[in-house]
């Protein structure tokens, strides 16, 4: 009986962490048609940035951010000839953003903010990296096929992981939880961090829902997701919508990393696996259906803990094996609908 409770609590906690990933994946895919294999790397960036901030080191992700902004200016170089005023303005804006990021990091370190505020700072530093990656890899080729985007995102994943290893090294960093300790629920010891994960994950999902239903920008995002061409005809800047989707997706994944880090420490290779498991869950909904994606990740979380208990050597085999019947089922359903 305790066993079932333990597994339930852990399955739920893991499922919620993957849920944020699945949300990011669905959001990115619907708006830009990018199956983002690199989504898990934001988990790593979020976790390591938070670890740096909490332990008083200058966060390494600022180097990534500033480097990316500089690269933006370089890519904009051709504009100087035709429209030097616009280009100058753009370069100044990028410089301002870079200075802002450095100032934010330094300020947060100097003030020694509490954990929750540090999470916000880390979020502000990591989420824009999503936009930069969109600018470098998706923006130049908006009409490329899905398979091209998949291959690109694999490359992005490898590069970001390599940069992570370069910046942070291979050693794992312990991260303080938002609330340390835990409580006994019946026979089961549940860390407070699990409750924090529950609350933050639900709040993020609710926030996304409200944003896309009740704000103009959110509705524009939905419109570009439903029909790209139609949205463009209605005057929605689809390219900007893509950037926004990458921004939000990076933010959700970074949050997931910051929630996960106190449980398993932060290290450069933590993201990829989490990303893949979020992907398996998201595939339940064909990467377009939010409720099904949530159902999928909960199944992944539950199956993972159960199989780790019953046959630990095969748990990843079982989780990724879930993908095959899922895809068969989706395929069959799609055919039925088409008929």
């Amino acid at each position, binding site marked *: 009986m305790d*066993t079932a409770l333990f597994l339930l609590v852990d399955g739920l906690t893991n499922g919620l962490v993957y849920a944020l990933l699945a949300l990011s994946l669905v959001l990115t895919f619907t708006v830009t048609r990018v199956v983002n294999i690199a989504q898990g790397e934001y988990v790593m960036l979020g976790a390591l940035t938070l670890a740096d901030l909490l332990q008083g080191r200058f966060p390494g992700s600022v180097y990534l951010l500033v480097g990316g902004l500089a690269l933006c200016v370089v890519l904009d170089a051709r504009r100087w000839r035709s429209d030097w005023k616009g280009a100058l303005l753009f370069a100044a804006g990028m410089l301002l953003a870079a200075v802002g990021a450095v100032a934010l990091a330094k300020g947060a370190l100097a003030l020694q903010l509490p954990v929750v505020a540090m999470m916000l700072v880390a979020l502000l530093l990591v989420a824009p990296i999503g936009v930069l990656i969109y600018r470098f890899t998706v923006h130049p080729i908006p009409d490329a096929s899905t398979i091209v985007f998949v291959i690109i995102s694999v490359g992005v994943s490898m590069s970001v992981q390599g940069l992570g290893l370069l910046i942070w090294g291979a050693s794992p960093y312990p991260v303080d939880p938002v609330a340390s300790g835990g409580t006994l629920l019946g026979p089961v010891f549940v860390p407070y961090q699990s409750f924090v994960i529950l609350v933050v994950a639900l709040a993020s999902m609710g926030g996304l829902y409200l944003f896309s239903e009740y704000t103009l920008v959110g509705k524009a995002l939905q419109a570009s997701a439903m029909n790209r061409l139609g949205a463009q005809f209605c005057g929605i800047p689809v390219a900007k919508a893509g950037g926004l989707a990458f921004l939000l997706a990076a933010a959700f994944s970074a949050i997931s990393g910051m929630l996960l880090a106190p449980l398993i420490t932060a290290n450069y290779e933590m993201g990829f696996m989490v990303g893949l498991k979020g992907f398996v869950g998201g595939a339940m909904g064909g990467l377009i259906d939010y409720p099904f994606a949530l159902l999928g990740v909960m199944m992944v979380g539950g199956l993972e803990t159960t199989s780790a*208990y019953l046959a630990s050597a095969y748990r990843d085999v079982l989780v990724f094996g879930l993908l095959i019947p899922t895809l068969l089922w989706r395929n069959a359903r799609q055919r039925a609908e088409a008929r």
Partner: protein
Amino acid sequence: MKNVLALVIAALALPGFAFAADKPELRIGSVVAMTGPASALGLPAKNAIDLLQERLANDASLPFTVKFITYDDASDPTKAVNSVRKLVTEDRAHVVICCSTTPASMAILDVVTQAKVPNISLALGQSVIEPVKERYWIFKTPSTDQLQIAVLVDDMIKQGSKKVAFLGLEDSFGEGGWVAMQSVAKAKGVEIVAAERFARTDTNFTPQALKVRQASPGAVYIHAIPPSSALVQQALRRVGYTGPIYHSGGSANSAFLSIGKKDVDGALLGTTPVLVYTDLAGNNPLKPVIADFAALYEKRFNVPKVDIFPGQAWDAGNIALKAAAEAAKGGAKPDDVDAFRAALRDKIEATKEFVGVGGIFNYTPSDHLGLDARSTFIAVVKNDEFRLYDAK
């Protein structure tokens, strides 16, 4: 004026030149992983070799001058093979120290065996030196999983438990531990009541911990590296396991302490003497040797505390030097490369009671590891520190 200067230079250079020409040259080649994923092992090894080279620069007591040739294999077995081939054929090294990792050390076996060059490996894996018949030219200095697990299992038995649960990583490191654990358990009559696996990137270790607790073992052995090893111990404590927890030498580092915090207090680890040498009894022959090396290394490279890796290369270099000196004494000429390599190998195999940093080495024709239980210790975590554990 010019002439005078030339004369002075000639006068200064001549004795030096004559001195160098008097003695033959001994060439020690080494290939370590200075870059890549294994650089945490390879860089300290390179530092130790550099240190040895600096020490020998002013040493006139040896019957030869020593030339060190060091290459980087970038943690890549293919590069290791190429570098060793270069050492053997172009540089004509008399002895090779290679490599930092088990895969690389396995990859170069054929090269050194065919060229008939003695090799001292710095890798952990037992398969590097066994079966000894096929590994005629290969020796190694680091301790093995088998040796450490045997010492830990002895302690488990002494504490009165005959049932052990195994928790290990599911990569090659964990597999090595699992194989070693099975053979040790069989030899010592200990029952393995549970065997669970996990990966470094897992997000949850509680299910495996639950399964282990329900098998009610007398002791748990965790074969992993941090963060997993510390997180698994936390999970075991969370599900209410209160018995003793043993770890492999892979956890004997500061990351284990900083991640595990209070939860790893009392954890027992199999380790080499370097980690706990300050706690050794004053009459232990290892203590002064390690203390000297630690002082040298810490001063030269400005590190707070020496870890286990530089000592392995330091021992390898010193064993090779000692064997070379004895080979030369026995009449072998370093200039006759092939004959000297064979003589050097025989002298390494004849090493007796050599007190190194990693332990006391006794190589024999049937044992190319050379270490025994005298060189393996159990450390216990006490107040965020590794201390020597003395079993009662």
